């Protein structure tokens, strides 16, 4: 984690050259893991996650099964080499929490009642970590679920917004995240504008917060289009 005392926005441009509402270059690919039922790889600049989906498949041990619906499980994991100082393998408290909020972000979009006693597993690996990893994971998981043929009400689209140098910006990179006055992880099902993930750290007035949420919603619409074209590409094949 790098702290800096320098300005993060100079003449309206962020240090990587972006305007305050610019995303980093986004890359979205699906069907990248052949053994999986669905998969996707999503990069926002130097943040990259890869996701595979397995299921619906019968859930064992049996006492975990639900007789009226399938269930969703998520695992968010950072590869040891994804961050500056090697991360020891195994789930820490941060990963446990992110796995939970990711599952809750995706759950409202899936309906598994046609698959009682089954489980859908979503495995998210962060290969490169440079800020906003959890929302990259949600974006990848969402399209991976779609390619796996899991029934969905809508895609789930996620982004981060934050406040740096007194300005609201989108898609924070690692340096911005570590030096932000506030950052927000946000996910929405765009068609009916239903929010499924909302976490915030920092210090914002109510007005700034509401503005941030509107900015997040607007940003997610852009990402939604990217998700849809990534999926279209894949269905062409």
């Amino acid at each position, binding site marked *: 984690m790098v702290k800096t005392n320098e300005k993060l926005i100079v003449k309206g441009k962020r240090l990587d050259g972006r305007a305050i509402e610019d995303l980093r270059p986004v890359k979205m690919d699906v069907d990248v893991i052949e053994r999986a039922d669905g998969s996707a790889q999503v990069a926002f600049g130097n943040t990259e996650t890869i996701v595979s989906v397995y299921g619906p498949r019968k859930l064992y041990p049996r006492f975990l099964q639900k007789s009226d619906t399938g269930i969703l499980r998520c695992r968010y994991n950072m590869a040891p080499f994804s961050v500056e100082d090697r991360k020891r393998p195994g789930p820490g408290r941060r990963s446990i929490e992110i796995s939970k*909020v990711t599952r809750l972000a995706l759950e409202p979009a899936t309906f598994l009642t046609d698959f009682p006693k089954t489980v859908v597993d979503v495995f998210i690996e962060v290969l490169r970590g440079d800020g906003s990893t959890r929302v990259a994971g949600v974006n990848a998981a969402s399209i991976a679920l779609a390619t796996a043929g899991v029934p969905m009400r809508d895609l789930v689209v996620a982004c981060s917004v934050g406040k740096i140098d007194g300005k609201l910006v989108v898609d924070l990179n690692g340096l911005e995240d570590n030096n932000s006055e506030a950052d927000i992880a946000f996910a929405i099902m765009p068609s009916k504008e*239903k929010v499924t993930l909302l976490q915030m*750290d*920092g*210090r914002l*007035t109510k007005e700034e917060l509401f503005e941030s*949420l509107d900015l997040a919603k607007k940003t997610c619409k852009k990402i939604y289009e990217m998700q849809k074209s990534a999926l279209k590409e894949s269905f062409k094949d």
Partner: protein
Amino acid sequence: MENYASNLLLSGKRIDNRKLDEFREIEIKQGIIDKAEGSAMVKLGKTKILAGVKIGLGTPFPDTPNEGMLIVNAEFTPLASPDFESGPPGEDATELARVVDRGIRESKCIDLKKLCKTPREMVLCVFVDIHIINHDGNLIDCAFLASLAALMDTKIPKIKDDRIVRGKFEKDLPVLYKPIEVTVCKVDDKFVLDPMFKEEAVIESKLTVCVRDDEKICALQKQGSKELTMDDIKKMIEIAIDKSKELRKLFER
């Protein structure tokens, strides 16, 4: 999932006749654990949570070489509910600890820079341990109140020869703000505060909001498996800001 309290709540009423945005009676007792540098038991109706603060010495994180460390840990002791199990903290205990941690950390209510003894080498570690004693709903709000009360009760021990002298104190832990976490719950189209355990059965989504004395929002955490509209969120934040003012009065003496 079926019970009388939750059925009532669905029709907009509460088994104890509270208003939807009314908290149960709150009792805060500080200074109850003599071995801890700070402690508090908070009763929120029948929910009881004990928070203890221990001060230790440690090496700072490399990227914050002149800041003390804050470590918040929560145990859902099997004591507190027939549903809790022995073993390492699960998903819910971990989330609770992290949401409380975030509220304390992000509100900057403790000045961690004041807890540095020797930069890069020795700083104070503030361990907040949250013990659930009886689970009757609304654990996060109650745990946050208990943690804040325990921090406000905390004294910094004397240090001699790089070791802590237990039982001798230098000064109070400086607590700069009194942030409050309020969890606003949504049941159908109604917003509800401070649900009891049985009421929680019908709550499908929640938003925990941490509000500082200056009305800055310091943390948000959406919970529950159902979505919220943008409007819901804005209303829930307004409700939380209002309620935080009322709850903060508990600490004004």
